[in-house]
């Protein structure tokens, strides 16, 4: 009996392998890594203003009683151009948006905002991507919804596109 089991063992391992492979083929690996901070407080960070015309902000400013959408963007980021009109629509529907400019300069940001529109209430500068890492983000653009107590409630990876608006609005309504 044990000998038979032993002889079938390689076959068993192979069946397991095929099972895992089939599962993986049906559910291909996503290349994005979701932040594990959803449901947890915003980690401490403080960002200087990216532009002379707008204030910067820090983690403490995100626990001010009102929810915020924090959007990581950059003037050098191509998908951010596609995202800009959607952010404008979200703003029109009452979403308060703060921006974090990743590895960017004031003149570039000014040019980007004048060309693509500016829906940001505040823009913090993150010249070395340290706030990006602190938030558990890995690319640009990414967006977080933070509730009034400063808890991260939602993480969107990549540009928010028109088809994503209902989901983002639903998450926004949940925390209002």
């Amino acid at each position: 009996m044990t000998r038979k089991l032993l002889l079938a063992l390689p076959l068993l391992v192979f069946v397991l392998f095929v099972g895992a492979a089939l599962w993986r083929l049906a559910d291909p690996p996503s290349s994005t890594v979701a932040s594990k901070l959803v449901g947890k407080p915003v980690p401490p960070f403080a960002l200087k203003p990216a532009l002379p015309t707008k204030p910067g902000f820090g983690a403490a400013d995100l626990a001010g009683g009102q929810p915020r959408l924090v959007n990581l963007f950059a003037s050098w980021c191509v998908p951010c151009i596609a995202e800009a009109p959607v952010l404008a629509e979200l703003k029109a529907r009452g979403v308060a948006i703060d921006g974090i400019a990743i590895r960017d300069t004031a003149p570039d940001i000014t040019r980007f905002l004048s060309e693509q529109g500016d829906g940001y209430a505040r823009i913090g500068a993150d010249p070395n991507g340290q706030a990006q890492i602190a938030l558990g983000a890995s690319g640009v653009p990414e967006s977080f919804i933070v509730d009034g107590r400063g808890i991260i409630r939602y993480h969107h990876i990549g540009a928010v596109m028109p088809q994503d608006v209902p989901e983002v609005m639903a998450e926004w309504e949940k925390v209002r």
Partner: protein
Amino acid sequence: MIAEAGLAALWLAAALALLQLGAAIAGPRVGDVRAVAVPTAVAQGVLTLFAFAMLIWLFVRTDLSVELVAANSHSMKPFIYRFSGAWGNHEGSMLLWVTVLAVAGAGLALVERRLPPETMRATLGAQAALALGFFGFLLIASNPFARLYPAPAEGQGLNPLLQDPGLAFHPPTLYLGYVGLSVAFSLAVGALITREVGPALARAMRPWVLGAWVLLTLGITAGSYWAYYELGWGGWWFWDPVENASLMPWLAATALLHSVNVLAARGGLRSWTIMLAVVAFSMSMVGTFLVRSGILTSVHSFAVDPERGSFILGLLVLYVGGALALFAARVGTVREGARFELVSREGALVANNLLLTVLLGVVFVGTLYPIFVEAATGDKISVGPPYFNAVSGPITLVLALLLFIGPLLNWRRDRRPNLRRIALPLVVTVLALAATFLADMSLLARLGLAFAAGLAVASLLPLAGRNLRRTPLATWGMVISHLGVAVALAGAASDTAFTRETLAAARPGEVLSVGPWSVRLAGVDPVAGPNWTAVEGHLVATRGGTTIRLDPQSRTFSDPPTETSEAAIRTLFDGQLYTVLGHREGERWQLRLWWKPFVTLIWLGGALIALGGALALVGRWWRGRRQRRSEEAFA
């Protein structure tokens, strides 16, 4: 017409494979195995070789009316990359795979004379079944000869990282190795079907395993060196899934190489050798599947396509599942082999097989574990160098230690092994270990250096006291391969222990130091190549009275737009100076400098291991020929 001729040859070859399989199933009724199977197998080899030549021709001519050429080539590419571009893509490399499979099948049919006809028939049937599946895959899901209408004005180019002389010949080498193992697989399946497992089978299998193993060793060694100079960070092995995919067949083939000797010489380890022969080629197919399906995220992504992945998985289930089921059903009836005791050559080889198999199992489990965890819990985890190094380090050291004594033991039983013979290597090991305490390094590096020194001596012992001229070439081969293990181990340990690194941003004229070297950035100039532009740094490195110049480049390719850094590496007798030019920071340029003492021993060791295998192959072939001649003379 060229493309159509190639395609027609493939269809014809597929039909012949079907015929060969049918003939094997029909059995002796359709005549002698040599009369039917041999011509069909040889014709398949010739036809696929022809198809492959047609594809190369299309690439060399840059015939853009062929979809594959348009997608992967460019008329401005240098000749050698237009040539190697033929297999630098999914379809072309699968055609190469099928070609090697068919040619290997033809070779087996032509060369093998010792096997009983029934086993031979079953083996050729198995080989035809393998070929048939891959022909189907090629013709149905990856046709390399598909036309594109209208033809574009220019091709899309080849990934610049693949435009490298090393990469032009690295994949075919590995393929030859992978597919060479298919012959061992078919022989094992054939023997399971006819239940004829014995020394004759082992002798038939051995040259194929040896040849495949030599090519795999060369391929992996070359791949490691390619990653080392191309990735630009001084690493030479990353435990990346794709690297693991190539290592697993090599580990299985290495174990098989040793167990097949036990079977050939002593008739022992019968079912185990069959198992390993099945596993070795299975691992080649698993590796192909992992790389092509993209189910594991890897730095070396290659023509990833889940649909094709499903097709390969289907073939895997058919062949590997079938062979394992056959194994489970039949191997119980295989007669047990000759007996032996723990302290014997067989005992040492069993220990070698045990350790290699454990390593293979660990690499397999570690590579696939993230998929299992994610399937079961949804969590994404990574298994990487810290895990693999922690396991493979100690196993490698024990294997090295086993090599001190193993080749000196007698077959069957060694009641009083002459331990005095290994006194010298043990003394060398201890002395080397003591010497390592002169420098600060990790324990693993310390032991690696010490064992490498001891093994370098121990590996030569089988030659001690022999007439070197009359020593069989196969013994020389074993000695050189084992010496190669010592050399590679020394290189790896030395890299870990002694490498010095300097990362800095320097102004032109500034001097940096790395290890014993002073490196001055003399200047930075723009340069241009056939299909790229670059900035080139001019470095002047001095040590004592030695001055060398190095010109690392940061290249920008236009088709497709990509940036690569071309490291400038200088090999000296005692190590390599490895320099990389990075980005510009204002007036400064980022420089990455490494001084890597004796790092080249890693690849030199790999080459020695392969050379030993090649010598053994030639030696056995030579001996076999002489034996046959003398037999014929008697008859």
